[in-house]
């Protein structure tokens, strides 16, 4: 999984809902087609996945040893 630059990483691991969702959608709005971002969370965000699919974005998820889900999202 290619890691995007730090400014394209939303570390939402210690944020309460709906903050992770809101910040991800805000960052997605700033991306150009083909660019990607990463969301870090301690859970899999299935409601976000649904919105991403509806909007035609690709995503790929990897679970790290410390329990962090790294979600790479392409616009």
């Amino acid at each position, binding site marked *: 999984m290619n890691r995007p630059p730090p400014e394209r990483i939303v570390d939402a*691991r210690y944020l309460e809902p709906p903050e992770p*969702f809101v910040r991800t*959608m805000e960052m997605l709005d700033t991306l150009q087609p083909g660019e990607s971002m990463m969301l870090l969370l301690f*859970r*899999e965000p*299935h409601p976000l996945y649904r919105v991403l699919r509806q909007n035609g974005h690709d995503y790929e998820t990897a*679970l*790290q040893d*410390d329990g*962090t889900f790294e979600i790479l999202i392409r616009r």
Partner: protein
Amino acid sequence: MQALLSFDKAPPFAAPLRFFLTAPIFAMAAGLLLAWSGGEMLASRWMPSLLAAVHLLTIGFMLQIMLGATIQILPVVAGANLARPMRVALWLHGGLSTGALLLAAGFWFGQPALLSAAAVALGLSTFAFLGAAGRALSGVPSTSPTIRGLKLALAGLAGAVLLGAMLALALARGWPLPVMAMADLHVGWALGAWGGTLLAAMAYVVVPMFQLTPGYPARPSWWFPGLLMALAVAWGLAIASDSTGAARVAQGGMALVGMAFAALTLRLQRQRRRARADATYRYWQLGLYCAIFALFQALTATILPQLADWAGWSLVFGILMIVGAFMSFIIGMLYKIVPFLAWLHLQNAGCTPAPAMNKLLPDASMVRQWQAHVLALVLLLGAVVVPDFLARLAGIALTVAAGGLFYNLLSIVQRYRAYLEAAKAK
């Protein structure tokens, strides 16, 4: 943002709410039974009146909320959607409530027909739910420890209900089954394979989310549900082959796994980034310490079985596990989930900005109810030692604590309705 936030697949608020609002009434009924019977209910774990009260708590309160919440969280934590969530909620709620009442009445009045009817009502409604949940989860890959845990927990529920129904029918019809060994196994499957596994699967999501702790490390999270389930199966096989020693090893193994999970959760809670000890945190701390103590008891009883000969041993275990641990975890989660759902549905109904969650239920109300729950727990434990003095008082305290929960949940719903009306009037 409004459209993006709408969880279009989320079941209507009424679907889980009917379970959450009915459950405290069953817990109040259990408290009233104890207040009515007094100390004689606590003479042994086999007292019919105690079995009635215990099942009002475990089915009427715990199972009711666990399944109501599962209907709600399947789309959120697993991306799995029940075909008709409202319809499932309606008949499941009816089946569980009727079944819990029939079972309690069957024990209380010693009526075989009521016990048989309870076994049928609870068996049919849970297995119909398992069918609906199984369809929703079929084809959903286990991409997270939560999804794997959820699937295994549902298998655990199937086992717990099957064993429970067999026991009820054995009592009603005099089937020649090893009732005592099977009752222990039923407890292991209900509180371990089902309750413990579901709790872990949910904790992986809600502990970091609601208490701002680090995440559960991946490796033990994958292993925990499978290990618990494998030990529960081994315990069952040991009973079937009449091997008491193997049953004890499996039982002790389950207790150790549960203790490890509770200790890990306590460690994560110590690293939380929210300094304030809110009601959810207090309930989880209470629950985790009670669980560790009860599981330590279970472990020592597998090594020194004569300990369990003292009638109070099983009673203390049951009180710590059911009232101290599971009810605490469940109420702690409800105090986050119900205000969050109210907020979410207000937001989706166009009530923007939706009121802050602490406007829907102030923390002080939850902490007061937690204090009532702690008092009820202490009195229940005391009643095991001095039943004649404390049993009735403990029953009243449990009724008051459950009544406080009912009142708190109802006030969230009332405020939710008031905000909704105000938004519509605009």
